[in-house]
C-alpha cells in the first residue's frame, strides 16, 4: 500500500517537473518580449545578449503612443473583434445545432460546402472579395472589415464535435417534455456546452484579434485602422524600433491574456457535463 503511494507520488513529481520545464520553455520567449520592451536600443544589440535591461526605461511605451494613434487602433480592434466574434458564435451555434441535431434534406451538402470553404487560401480570394466589397460600398467602413471576416466554418465544426457528444437520451427526454427544436437547443444543448462555446468564442476572438491583411486592404482611414496594422507600422522599416515594437506587442496581448486567465476556469472545467454522468 505504502509502496504504491510512494510510487504515485514520485510519478506525480516527475510529471510536475516535466510540465514545469516545458512550460518555462513555453513562456521564455514571452518573458523575453516583456524584458525587451524595457530595453534601450543599445541593450538590444549587445553581445553577448543582455537579458535584463540595463535601465528599466518606460520610454518605449510612450513612443508607441507617439508613433501611432494606439488608443484609436485599440478601440477599432475591440469593436471589430467583438462584433466578428459575437456574430460568428451566434451563427455557428445555430448552424452546428441544425447540422447535428436536426434532420433536413441537403444538410450533408451544406456541411461539405462549409468544410470546403476552409480549403481556399485567403491570398487568392482577397482580390475578388475586395471587388465585392467595393461594389457594396463597404470600403473604409466597420462593416467592410467585419462582414467578410465572418467565416464560421471553423467554429461551427468545433461546436459540432461537442454538440455531437450530448447523449441522445437527454434530447429525447426534453422532447418528451414538450420541447420543440428551439427548446431543445436553448434548454439542453447550449446550457450543457457552455464551456465548449466559451472555447469557440476564445478561438474566434483570437483569430479576429490578430487579423492584419484584410483590414489593411479594405481600410485607408486612420479611424478604421486596427492594432496589427499599427504593430506592422512600428517594425517594417528596420529592426531599430525592435524595443518599441515589443512594448506595443505587450500592450496588445495584455487584454487577451487577462481575458484568458479569467475565463480559464470556465473554459476547461465547466465542460464537464453533469447530465452525462449516467
Amino acid at each position, binding site marked *: 500500500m505504502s509502496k504504491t503511494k510512494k510510487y504515485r507520488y514520485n510519478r*506525480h513529481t516527475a510529471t*510536475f517537473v516535466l*510540465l514545469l520545464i*516545458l*512550460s518555462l520553455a*513555453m*513562456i521564455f*520567449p*514571452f518573458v523575453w*518580449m516583456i524584458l*525587451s520592451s524595457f530595453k534601450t536600443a543599445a541593450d538590444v544589440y549587445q553581445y*553577448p*545578449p543582455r537579458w535584463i535591461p540595463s535601465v528599466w526605461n518606460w520610454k518605449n511605451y510612450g513612443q508607441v503612443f507617439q508613433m501611432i494613434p494606439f488608443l484609436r487602433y485599440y478601440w477599432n480592434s475591440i469593436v471589430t473583434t467583438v462584433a466578428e466574434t459575437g456574430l460568428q458564435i451566434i*451563427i455557428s451555434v*445555430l*448552424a452546428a445545432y441544425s447540422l447535428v441535431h436536426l*434532420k*433536413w*434534406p441537403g444538410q450533408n451538402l451544406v456541411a461539405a460546402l*462549409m468544410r470546403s*470553404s*476552409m*480549403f*481556399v487560401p485567403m*491570398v*487568392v*480570394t482577397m*482580390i475578388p*472579395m475586395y*471587388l*465585392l466589397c467595393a461594389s457594396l460600398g463597404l470600403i473604409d467602413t466597420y462593416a467592410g472589415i467585419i*462582414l467578410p471576416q465572418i*467565416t464560421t466554418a471553423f467554429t461551427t*465544426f*468545433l461546436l459540432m*464535435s*461537442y454538440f*455531437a457528444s450530448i447523449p441522445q437520451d437527454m434530447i429525447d427526454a426534453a422532447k*418528451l417534455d*414538450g420541447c*420543440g*427544436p428551439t*427548446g431543445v437547443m436553448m434548454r439542453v444543448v447550449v446550457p450543457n456546452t457552455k464551456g465548449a462555446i466559451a472555447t469557440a468564442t*476564445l478561438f474566434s476572438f*483570437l483569430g479576429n484579434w*490578430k487579423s492584419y491583411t484584410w483590414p489593411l486592404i479594405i481600410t485607408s482611414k486612420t479611424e478604421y485602422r486596427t492594432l496589427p496594422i499599427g*504593430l506592422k507600422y512600428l*517594425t517594417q522599416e528596420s*529592426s531599430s524600433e*525592435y524595443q518599441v*515594437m515589443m512594448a506595443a*506587442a505587450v500592450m*496588445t*496581448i495584455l487584454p487577451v491574456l487577462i481575458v*484568458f486567465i479569467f475565463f480559464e476556469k470556465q473554459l*476547461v*472545467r465547466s*465542460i464537464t*457535463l453533469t447530465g452525462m*454522468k449516467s
Partner: protein
Amino acid sequence: MSSEASAQRSAPARKHKIKLFGREYHTNEVAVGILFIVPTLAFMVFTFILPVIDVVDLSFTNFNLKTRTMKYIQFENFKYLLGAEDFWKSLLNTVKYSVMKLTLDTSIALFLAVLLDKNIKGKKFFRSSFFAPVVVPMVASSLIWIWFYDPTVGPFNQILGWLGLPESQWLYHESTALWSILLFSLWKGVGYNIILFLSGLQNIPDSYTEAAKLDGASEWQLFWRVKFPLLRPITSFVIMMGIINSFKVFAEFNVMTPDGGPLGSTKLIVSYIYELAFTNGRMGRACACALMLFALIFVLTQFQSMVGAHKTVDID
C-alpha cells in the same frame, strides 16, 4: 413568442412528417433546421462562394494584376504549374512540413493535455503558460524567434554549446530551415490543441474512468481503452483542422523567411501562390494553383473523414 412555444410543444404529439428526396423528415425540424442554417449560408455566399467562382473563372485566364489585362487561355495555367519546378518543390516542402507538424502537434498536445488533466499542483499556471504563445501576435513572436535562431548571438546555439552539441545554422541552412520554422509554429500553436483535448478529456464522465480503475486498468490501459476512444470526435476535428491549416500555412513562413529560405527550402505552396499573384502579378496562375491546393486538401480530408468515421462506429 408564446404561439411559437405552444406550436413546438404540440409538435411531437402530432408528428407532422414530410417526404423529401425519398426520405421522411419532421416538418418542424426541416423548417427550423433550414432557418438556422440560413445565416451561415448567407455569409458563405459572400465570403466563399462568390469569391471562389471568381477564382475558378480567373484560373482559366492570364489575368495579370499589374497590367490588368485578361484573356481566356483554357488550361495553360495548370499546364504551366505542372511543368514548373517551383510548384513541385513548394508542394514537396508543404507535404514534409504538414506531415511533421500534424504528427508532432497532435501527439504532443494530446500528451500534455493528458498530463494537465491530472490533479497536479500549479495546473492553472501550466495551462496558461502553454496557451500564452497563442496570444502573442505573429509579428512580435517571429521577431523574438528570429533572434533566438541567430547562429552567432542567438541563445539557442549558446544552449547547444552548453550541452556539448554541435551548433546549428537554424533558419540559414537548407536542411534545417523548414524544421526551425516547424519548431516555432509548434511553440506558437500547440496551446490551441491542448485546450481542445483538455476540454474533451474533461468531458469524459468520471463513471467511465472509475469503472475502468475498479477493473484494475493501469493508467496506460485507461488512456488507450477508455479515454482515447472517447476523444475521437475531438481528435478527428483536430486532425482535420491540422490538415487544412498546415497545407494553408503562410504567416509563419512569410515572417521568418520572406525570401523562401536558403535554396527555396521554406517556400511553401501558399508562399508560392503569393509570389505568383503579388510578386509576379500572375493572378491567373495563382488561382489555378489555389484550385490545385483545394483539390489536394479535399482529397486528404475526405480520406481522413472516411478513416475517422469508420473508427467512430467501432466505439459506439
